[in-house]
């Protein structure tokens, strides 16, 4: 059984079919890339998967359970988390606090435990803090936990978003152009990190424009164009698919 299964999902905005009857699946432990020219509908798919948009039709199943009628909060709770194409960090909070917010959904102590600093608070707060530090160290931000998120360079901010997504204990992580704004060295390092995540058992869906990155890291690739799924397969197959080449060269040039 696939970890995630999207069955003919459609998203209509007024007259615009942003995503048109798209089906795909992701197995546990895979890195699956979603590619396509600007405006193809990639981010919209993420918004559908995470409950930001109510899908117009179709069905989405995660671990065999329907999720397309659930709230974003319920979906996070089930184990799907994401990053944003246009960074959405909590800018005036420190890096570690951003990641701690990610642990919110797994935090069991309540308001009064926090107010009165009960042993439950002490214990869990320490656990969560250590967890946040561990995640930040693994992603190479161990020395920046005290910085304000908005003071970090762009590439580091992207990493904080990934760390925050991991902190929710997600099984499936959706990364929307995580390497955008990174220099080649940073992006190389990020690739290594994403592979490490997979090796630890996470499953990843990646939206990425950099073909070098995509071909290098993906187990499988899906290609969207004008809201339609035009191809899917192994990186090698996609690279030589005439329809894909046509979509990329025929459409608007990518950044």
């Amino acid at each position, binding site marked *: 059984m696939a970890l995630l299964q999207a069955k003919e999902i459609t998203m209509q905005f007024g007259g615009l079919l942003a995503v048109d009857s798209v089906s795909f699946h992701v197995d546990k432990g895979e890195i699956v890339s979603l590619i396509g020219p600007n405006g193809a509908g990639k981010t919209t798919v993420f918004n559908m998967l995470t409950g930001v948009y109510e899908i117009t039709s179709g069905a989405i199943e995660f671990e065999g359970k329907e999720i397309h009628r659930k709230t974003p909060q319920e979906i996070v709770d089930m184990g799907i988390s994401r990053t944003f194409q246009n960074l959405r960090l*909590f800018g005036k909070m420190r890096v570690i606090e951003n990641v701690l917010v990610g642990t919110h959904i797994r935090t069991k102590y309540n308001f009064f435990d926090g107010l009165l600093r009960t042993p439950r608070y002490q214990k869990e707060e320490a656990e969560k803090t250590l967890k946040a530090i561990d995640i930040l160290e693994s992603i190479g931000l161990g020395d920046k936990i005290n910085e304000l998120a908005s003071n970090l360079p762009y590439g580091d901010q992207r990493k904080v978003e990934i760390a925050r997504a991991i902190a929710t204990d997600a099984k499936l992580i959706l990364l929307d152009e995580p390497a955008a704004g990174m220099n080649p060295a940073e992006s190389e390092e990020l690739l290594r990190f994403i592979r490490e995540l997979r090796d630890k058992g996470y499953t990843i869906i990646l939206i990425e424009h950099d073909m070098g990155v995509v071909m290098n890291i993906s187990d499988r690739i899906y290609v969207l164009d004008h809201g339609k799924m035009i191809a899917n397969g192994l990186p090698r197959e996609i690279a030589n698919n005439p329809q894909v080449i046509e979509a990329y060269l025929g459409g608007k040039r990518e950044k």
Partner: protein
Amino acid sequence: MKEKKSLNLLAPFESFVDKFKVPLSILVGAFLIAVPFLGASRVAMRNLVMIFLYAMLGMGLNVLLGYVGQVSLGHAGFYAIGAYTSAILTTTYGWSFWTGAIAGACVAALIGFLLGLPTLRLSGTYLTIVTLGFGEIVLMVLRQWESVTNGNYGIRSIPVPELFGWELTLSNGGFYWLILFLSTVTAIACYTIKNSNAGRTLIAIKEDELAATMMGIKTTRYKILAFVVSAFITGLAGAYYSVINNGYIEPNNFVFNYSIQILSVVIVGGMGTIRGMYFGSALLMMFPQVFRFLNQWRFVIYGLLLVLMMQFRPQGALGWQSTLPYKLPRRAKKALAEREKAKTVQ
């Protein structure tokens, strides 16, 4: 994206205060407790009492405005509910101040919960207008519901608080110590809330509501929580106010103007900070007194100051971000230290 560096001359002072938090607070604390023995005049004592009262009111609103980012123009309503509930219970039903005050705070919190419910449907500016209406409705009820509130005549002969048979008054320092105590407890509570899951959650919602939602935060629930906590603190402050006003409260003590005063404490002092509430309150209370000689011009000057502040220091006078490292929970610090040790042993 970077903050403007130009006006950051406060930085050395900031880190100084941050660094010597503990000895400074002991020193200041000891001094504050000793104040009634220093022979200050009644007027001075009254001013001090009002400063601490408005600091507490500021902290109450701060939970809503500073943490979760919701503007309220009706906090005088919660203030009134706390004051009237406590005053009615102590005069008509013979409750003690202490139980009456807690009841006043709880009733305010309950009303805060009900007022917070529209967050399910409304947001931002619309909710602000609801709070504005709320303040006016409370006033109307106070004026019209004569059988309970005594209408425009207000409530008289509210007894002063008693502690083990000792009557607290302005002249024996009792009023002063009571508000010092209440505002300190409030400050500590705000501090622990801010440094726990709930506080982080509220601030995350203020920073980016969608991102907070995508972290699994039930934003509505937390906004209502902010309303409840904010109303509780404000109601408690109201109960206190009901006993220090020569045993007398009336609807005019809770008009719109007071909602604005509370708001300006938070904005001038520094949204989201606790220290700022004391400073904002002191400024608000002292300004009309110090600049009395300016007569009606003082309001112009005050307005001008507010505008300049918004322009050059929108985060408020003491609204700085701590430059110190994140304060790790004690046990986390210990665990990290042990890890370090293990590393060096290897």
